[in-house]
């Protein structure tokens, strides 16, 4: 299965349809009560997805440092493809937000790219990726991402867009990454607050923000597991 392009299954599609996409209402998905447009099927589903548990995150930013290091060979929070935002004075759990690329079933960033630099990478089970050689720096993909913070990162140093490729292209890390390989953020997170699935999640927060705190050991620490 490693390199076989994966189309969205009917089951996956129903998950998509079960919730509204942020930035895309259900109405937009079902214009006039019709079935989804064929172009959605033209962008095959990603073979994998990062899931996070924002209640488990400790805000250490280690995932950001690992992401930047593995991809760029240097440390730079602004170049990390996963972003952790926090407010020291706010109360749990609203004090931390984890922003990872959702590898959207219907990716506005891919749609927005005029040069197809942002594409579903067939060599990496269709993870949405940037072909830097084709990127003209128009930033339409950056603007198209409907989430706050946007998951397409503008590399202000090398002047191109970049985004989470599930570590398929990490020239500064010797591990084999990608959908079927290791991901730096998962490997580094000391709280085990990031995980991975091949199943397309529900296209809402609940689908991507999961509970990874169900172990007996976690409960014994006195930290909340619900």
């Amino acid at each position, binding site marked *: 299965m490693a390199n076989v392009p994966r189309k969205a299954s009917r089951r996956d599609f129903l998950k998509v349809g079960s919730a509204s996409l942020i930035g895309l209402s259900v109405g937009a998905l079902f214009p006039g009560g019709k079935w989804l447009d064929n172009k959605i099927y033209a962008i095959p589903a990603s073979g994998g997805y990062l899931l996070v548990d924002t209640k488990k*995150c400790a805000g250490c*930013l280690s995932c950001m440092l690992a992401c930047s290091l593995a991809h760029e060979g240097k440390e730079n929070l*602004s170049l990390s493809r996963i972003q952790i935002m926090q*407010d020291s*004075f706010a109360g749990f759990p609203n004090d931390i*937000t984890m922003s990872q690329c959702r590898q959207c079933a219907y990716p506005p960033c891919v749609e927005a790219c005029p040069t197809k630099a942002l594409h579903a990478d067939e060599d990496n089970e269709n993870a949405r990726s940037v072909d830097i050689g084709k990127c003209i720096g128009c930033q339409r993909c950056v603007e198209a991402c409907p989430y706050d913070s946007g998951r397409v990162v503008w590399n202000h140093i090398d002047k191109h867009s970049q985004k989470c490729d599930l570590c398929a292209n990490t020239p500064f890390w010797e591990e084999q990454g990608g959908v079927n390989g290791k991901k730096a953020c998962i490997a*580094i997170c000391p709280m085990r607050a990031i995980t991975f699935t091949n199943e397309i999640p529900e296209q809402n927060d609940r689908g991507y923000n999961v509970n990874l705190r169900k172990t007996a050991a976690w409960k014994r620490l*006195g930290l909340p597991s619900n």
Partner: protein
Amino acid sequence: MKGFMGKILRIDLTNRSISTIDTKQYEQWGGGHGMGSAIFWDLCKDKGIKAFDPGNVVTVMTSPLSGTLTPSASSRTEIQGIGPQSWPYEWFTRSNVGGRFSAMLKFAGWDGVVVEGKASEPVWIDIRNHKVEIKDANGLWGLDAYEAQQEIWSEVNDGENYGTWNQVGTGRDGGRSTQRPAVLTIGQAGENLARNAVIMHDAGNAAGQGGLGGVWGSKNLKAISVIGTGSVEVADPNALLQARIWLHEGYHYNVDEPIHESPVDNMPVYGTITRSPGYATLYIPYTEPSRAKGCTGCYNNCRRKTSSGYSNEASCVESLFYMTEKMEDTHKATDLLQRYGINVYDIMQHGYLRDLYMRGIIGPGKQIHSDLPFEKYGELEFAEALTKAIAFREDIGADLAEGMPRAIEKWGLLDDMNKGLVTFPNWGYFEHYDPRLEIEWSYGSILGDRDINEHDLNWLVHWMPLVCDAVGQEPIVSAQRVAEQISSKLVIYNDPMMLDYSEEGIYSDAKVKMVSWHRHYTRYFKQSMLFCDWAWPNFLSVNNPEMKGFTPEGEPKFLNAVMGTNMTFEEGMEIGRKIWNLDRAIWIMQGRHRDQEVFNDYVYDVPTSAPYHLPIFKDGQWSFDVNLGRTLDRDKFEDWKSKYYTHEGWDPSSGWPKRSTLEGIGLGYVADELAKNGKLGRE
């Protein structure tokens, strides 16, 4: 050498001038403390000045590891200068603070900030990448440390919301960030020149010891804010990533499947053994939904954040400042300290104030007049009144803002201190651990400038048997193994007797080596490379079946991956020795002599009366003893000092370094200055 940004920001507040220092000329010192001391030596021309003199030079330094994936070494900030807290002398001192600041300063392109002079009006420093401005702080002055940070966050981002990408500076080439600026600030205590004022960062990080918050107040400096979008270069990214994974797999507390965990649920203090997340509040269990919280790059994440937001990020003694029946009030009292910016260690013994009240010495119309609500002691109302009084120098707070030892001296109650009714064993600093017993801590403190606050041995020799005892366990590591395994890592000495805390052991030649190792290790690895005190060194970890520890392998593994050097552990220790000698020279220029390096009387005269776990070697056997009835012997300690000075290459008659010692470590210019002032040790 990778890891450095290449320039240090130099700000003269008197002239409101901004310039840079080339980092290269100070790279030999590692970073952090070493660089700070070297810069202080060069820029503070009259080292005999008082802390609040405008000539005092304050350094705020990062390390080559700041902003990198190096575990628990990515974001501590070392702050130095002449401190007003130590008593009776205002020594050149240090304090370091966790959180996000040093990483963000690096991302903005700076290895440190040096502050000189005094502004004519309150100011704050706004750093956005390479753009630096000294700004009017009249709108910030009077705000508490939380309010000031939030006001600056709003100002830096034009009042916009965070939680999205924001442009840093003008033009898209400046880059974007989702992060809030990292801000160091003082509260009202610092503004009012309290000697026990801290420099705060985020909710629960403070450069607390030394009173450097008061020094900022004396300079009319409210805050330094930084936001950066630049890069920290790493020599070998793959080696750094793999080293971090090596540490996780071998030594890290696995939150889902720990190898060893507390036998009692929701017992953070057991984390002193396991390093489970959120353990920093020690005796305070989770009482409300919370998360563990870590500084940038941490792998332990010892702090916590609560659903109420009270006491966010607080750790250790600041969490335990005011234990009440209502946990919410305990948390609120801690927040008062953080907001006003008061050093908890200096007023931790507020129970002594209550004793004075009960003795009829403090109160309305008493010898020490006070209208504080002592009848409400134990309730939040008293903590509110006490902290406010200190921050604004009201009531007895006017005296307590001078630091509790100076207040006690003014009140004519030094006899209480000498009897141990209130405990300040060295330089007017709070008794952190028993100075009669845990002596690498107390000896290190009296040979330096403050309570050292270095837990290297302390976790294993004291906390481990204490906590095991508390939960009804035998020590999970025997005293013999503690001595043998720790000493195997005390390169280059490797003598198990260095861990002997018996009545004989604390004056031994082995203890000379122990204290010397400790001073050199912490000066370089911990305070200059800025490895966190609560994570490094690692002599033994219960998170692997063999209980291996990653020291001394881990330190050079990480710093070489970042810097691209081939430095050995031993070479790091030598730089530590050099820094320790430079600090010694600064103190000598301030007037230091061996005759001053003595403890408060109670340390010598009042026997220990509570069980205190430490390993001892007796009759050929190692065991953990509770060490009751122990005092420090004056003559034996003086003899030990002579041995220690000799070991360091210092003149035992004065405690001053010899020229041959200083020249041997590249400090000939320091020897020249000491000689010029008649303060060089005799050969």
